């Protein structure tokens, strides 16, 4: 049988994920000096580094058994896998923000919301039973209300300083975000003992 494969999200969550594995006692030397290789050995495991949305895709198809990915990506792209652990790091939140002093909910005019996460934005307003035009923006979403394209934005907020610096303010919290461990459903059943042990190790390591 092939080694258990773990997909890690590149960037923001990468360092903390590697620290987590180090604290469990895994040999992460190859993860730190990865060079150009894409599949990296870590003890008896194989580790791949991928963009957040791809971590979900690899795990969903069973190409990787386990993934570490932010709740933001799961909310936007996620579907069929087990979401088994909240690792507690990479904390931030989804929030609705508008120009300071503007009243987003006032009146009956059509509201336009810009977001890198159109599904999250749409669902948030669907739950309220509100018709909102959502526009997908790929880069700095704060720009959209400043340029008059949108009345508000739905975006990840960490400290809130970017929002404030651009003359916006958070008007509503949507969802807390942190790094999660996801597991392919078939892998969970076919290789239960190995995966449960790894999950247990990770759970203990984040609690310390």
């Amino acid at each position, binding site marked *: 049988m092939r080694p258990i494969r773990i997909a890690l999200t590149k960037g923001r969550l990468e360092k903390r994920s590697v620290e987590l594995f180090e604290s469990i006692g895994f040999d992460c030397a190859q993860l730190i000096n990865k060079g150009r290789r894409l599949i990296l050995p870590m003890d008896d495991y194989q580790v791949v580094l991928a963009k957040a949305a791809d971590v979900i895709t690899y795990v969903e198809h*069973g190409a990787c058994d386990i993934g570490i990915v932010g709740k933001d990506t799961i909310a936007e*792209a996620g579907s*069929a896998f087990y979401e*088994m652990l909240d690792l507690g790091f990479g904390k931030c939140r989804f929030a609705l923000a508008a120009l300071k002093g503007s009243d987003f909910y006032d009146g009956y005019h059509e509201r336009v919301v810009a977001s890198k996460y159109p599904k999250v934005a749409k669902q948030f307003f669907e739950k309220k039973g509100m018709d909102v035009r959502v526009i997908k923006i790929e880069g700095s979403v704060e720009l959209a209300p400043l340029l008059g394209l949108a009345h508000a934005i739905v975006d990840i907020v960490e400290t809130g300083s970017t929002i404030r610096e651009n003359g916006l303010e958070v008007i509503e919290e949507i969802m807390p975000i942190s790094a999660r461990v996801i597991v392919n*459903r*078939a892998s969970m*059943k076919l290789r239960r003992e190995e995966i449960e042990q790894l999950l247990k190790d990770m759970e203990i390591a984040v609690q310390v």
Partner: protein
Amino acid sequence: MRQYAKITPEGTKDYVFEECEARGAAQAALTGVFESHGYAPVMTPYLEYYDVFHRPSADWLTEKLYSVTDSRGRLLVMRPDNTLPIARVASARLQYEDMPMRLYYHQSVFRRSRFYAGHSDEYLQCGVELLGAQGLRADLEILQCAVDALRACGVRNFRVELGHAGFFKALADTVSMSEDLRAELIQCIESKNCPALEELLCRIGNTGETGALRALPRLFGGEETLKQARALCGLPAAHEALDSLAALYDCLRALDLQEHVDIDLGLVHGQRYYTGFVFRGYIEGSGISVLSGGRYDALLAEFGRPAAAVGFAVALEPLAELLLEQGKIPKRAPAEVMVFGAAGFEAAALKHLRGLNEQGLRCEYAPFESLEQAAQYAKRKGIPRLDVMDAHGLSQSAV
């Protein structure tokens, strides 16, 4: 539309040569199993009225369906599920048939999937429904039939997880909540998302059996899982569900299947029509489940013919792929003989070919004008023998 003329729609594909043969072989193996268990074939239309799938016990979101309207504007859908159309047939055209009724099918289902996620929108399900049969015997037979189906397709390493819709229902019914919250609850449990479940149960409030609900995502493993669950709640309906699973598990042990079977009480099927035990099966090499089924005792009543029912379906694609990987589907061999008729001897050559066919030989009739062309083609294709019918009669040569 010209730009789409050469491609198949998103989520669908063409099957050629040994891919077709692998599917055919898997289907034949499954038909053999279903027939040997006494099941009879049914076929339902690809298109059904939307009403078949739009009911309290089934939860098909319109965005998941391929739909069209008929000539009178009524909404039709490409079937996203096989159990509902079969429940419809059993209650309509087969309403006077004796129960228990055993039906099997090989039918594609159509579901819209996420864009560019690499999922299929059309896939072939092969399954059985045992209608009008209640209790342990029927449940057991269905499980054995499902295992036989996997094994018939050459699967050795597989796992089946067993759950019970009644266990979740007993717990959830003690908590008053809206349909939306219930759907969210099912989603949390199905994805084993403990933090979200925790948060949701706090929102609902600590009334009812929330302690046991909280534990559901982690209630999976071997037989001991049933004991853990028993200790968690005292509801008679929940214990009844656990008792029936325990009885089933005992029989599975007697059938030497225990090493393939796990209990997962967090298996709360998204399909709302399930009322009793539910199961899914997994094989190595497929990241998604290949087997899914369970008991649905309330569904047929919705179609006007109250009867207990249980069934399962396997996904054909991963099984056909497995046959290919295992090398069980031989590469297609060329024809054994090419038959060429010279000008004026076309009919005589064809007559000769039919004679060869009757001897069991696979032959290609050369559609070429010249013998030379026929010989070249036979050589390219690896056809070993060339029979020629001309003024000298029949001559046979090796290519």
